[in-house]
């Protein structure tokens, strides 16, 4: 049975980039894989359709709490290989599943992600929150101040509207700090931490370490090719041509800049100070140096 590994991240932290890179790594094509046909990784953990298919229940008639209580069983079921077309002949060495859910418990105290039954481990992607803010604002079609406020709000959820049906279930993010803390502090599954900035600076070494954590050993030539095929230029080219189905409907583009440190131009001093106040402890823990003391004096 192939291992399941969560790709857990607060949005805009390199998760999709990693997935597309891996899809190219495991593709035998000599051209970049279509970003709208990434079939080497499962759809996001919070997707509604796989749940309905596995449970045979129409989740549109269930409350968020009823759904959350059943999510662990569906993750355990999928991790056991039951949903693969042929469990004895998996197409890929690792089953990567993206998640924007923080690591939380159901109302009966069970981990929603099903603990060790749901996955063999998790790769946690983090990114400097000052770079997340402008990217998140672009993603959600809101102001940077609104994005900063959502990043600091432990109650902010994705897909929580109750007057319509979303293709995804409600996801608790617990804010930028709370998200990382929930995954780093749980003791159910091992976590491998990736900083977006490190993945940019040395993509090959960072991805190699992550794949080894997941139990896969890639060929160096193929890895180099996959990195080139998943370059930001290529992702932007494809998105401009045919759109990206995983992008929010309102977002103009999903693949925006793909750089680190852009916040110095994007944010006001007040915004920088706000983010650093909201997330000081987690920024220190993850090695993001703060400049608030300096900017607040100005």
């Amino acid at each position: 049975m192939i291992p399941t590994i969560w790709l857990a991240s607060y949005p805009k932290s390199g998760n999709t980039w990693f997935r597309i890179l891996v899809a190219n790594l495991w593709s035998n094509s000599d051209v970049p894989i279509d970003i709208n046909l990434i079939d080497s990784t499962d759809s996001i953990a919070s997707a509604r359709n796989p749940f309905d298919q596995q449970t045979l229940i129409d989740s549109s008639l269930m409350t968020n709490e009823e759904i959350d209580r059943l999510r662990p069983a569906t993750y355990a079921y999928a991790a056991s290989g039951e949903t693969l077309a042929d469990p004895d002949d998996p197409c890929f060495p690792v089953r990567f599943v993206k998640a924007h859910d923080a690591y939380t418990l159901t109302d009966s105290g069970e981990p929603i992600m099903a603990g060790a039954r749901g996955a063999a481990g998790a790769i946690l992607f983090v990114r400097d929150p000052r770079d997340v803010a402008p990217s998140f604002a672009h993603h959600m079609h809101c102001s940077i101040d609104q994005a900063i406020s959502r990043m600091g709000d432990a109650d902010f959820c994705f897909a929580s509207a109750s007057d319509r049906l979303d293709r995804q279930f409600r996801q608790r993010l617990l804010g930028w700090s709370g998200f990382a803390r929930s995954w780093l502090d749980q003791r159910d599954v091992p976590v491998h931490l990736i900083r977006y900035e490190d993945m940019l600076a040395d993509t090959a070494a960072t991805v190699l370490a992550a794949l080894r954590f997941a139990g896969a050993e890639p060929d160096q030539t193929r890895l180099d090719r996959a990195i080139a095929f998943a370059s930001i230029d290529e992702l932007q080219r494809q998105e401009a041509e045919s759109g990206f189905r995983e992008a929010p409907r309102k977002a103009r583009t999903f693949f925006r800049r793909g750089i680190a440190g852009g916040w110095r131009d994007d944010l006001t001093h007040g915004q920088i100070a706000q983010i650093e106040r909201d997330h000081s402890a987690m920024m220190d823990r993850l090695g993001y140096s703060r400049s608030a003391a300096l900017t607040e004096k100005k």
Partner: protein
Amino acid sequence: MYSYRVSGLEVASEVDLPGLIPGDPGGPPDVTIRRAAVPMTLDGASAIGPTWQRADGRFLMHVPHVARFLLEGGHSIAFEAEDDAELQDVAVFLSGSVFGVLLHQRNHIVLHASAVLVGGKAVLFCGQSGAGKSTLAAALGEQGYSLIADDQCAIEIGNDGIPRIQADGRQLRLWEKSINELGLDDRRGDPMRNRLRKFYVEPVAATNAAVPIGAVYALLEIRGQQLPDIEQPNVVDATRLLVANAYRPLLVHRLDQREIYFRAAAALAATSGIFRLKRQFEFDEIPATIAMLRTHWADIGLGDAAP
């Protein structure tokens, strides 16, 4: 006993099932629904999912804190409510998810689709939950196209080789946002469950007869620069599309029913057509989608595309 007609089957039920069309209380029922003790597990289960078990001709389904359902031989459903679940809660799962599994169990070809009447034929819109099936059927209803089915479409291939769907006459089931956007407030009925903002909505007109199929569309959402379009896939892709749009594709595979879907796809390709309907998802794009459909209906000979 209450009598209903669901996907062409006479149903006798001990409980009221809102949203279904009345049946013939005199005739022998094809399916009986009754309250009874239902076990937690099935002896000799050959397959076990997160919420279901299967053993020979029996299927156990479990909606935690709502009810357990035992489906036997495709002709009887027993249910046992859990905790203090209300009958209303049990009923919505019975007439939807559970009946859908029963149709699969009976080897019916059952699609996850809504359907409206166009020029005397059924036009189906297939898609996953949230794809916009009911909303499109409701918008077409406002243009005078009668509702045939809202969520499940059971297809029968007659001896004449013509695929038909059994009218399901169910009420539309729409979320509050769709009701508001389409201006259907005056026909909004009860919520499907007290705690949900999804409601029964009375269609303008509905049909009760079995109807030959005129076209099957798989709903696809486009983004960015892509243009709305209606495509006709080749027969291999069309067959895959049909299986993928079964009500529960997992059961098509588990119950080894791919063959009957292949035959249905061939019959549909020969008599009507399976298409991909690519369109923007937003509500304000619906009129453009309907205009595109009308042109297509004229092209494929569904009358003059009038209702």
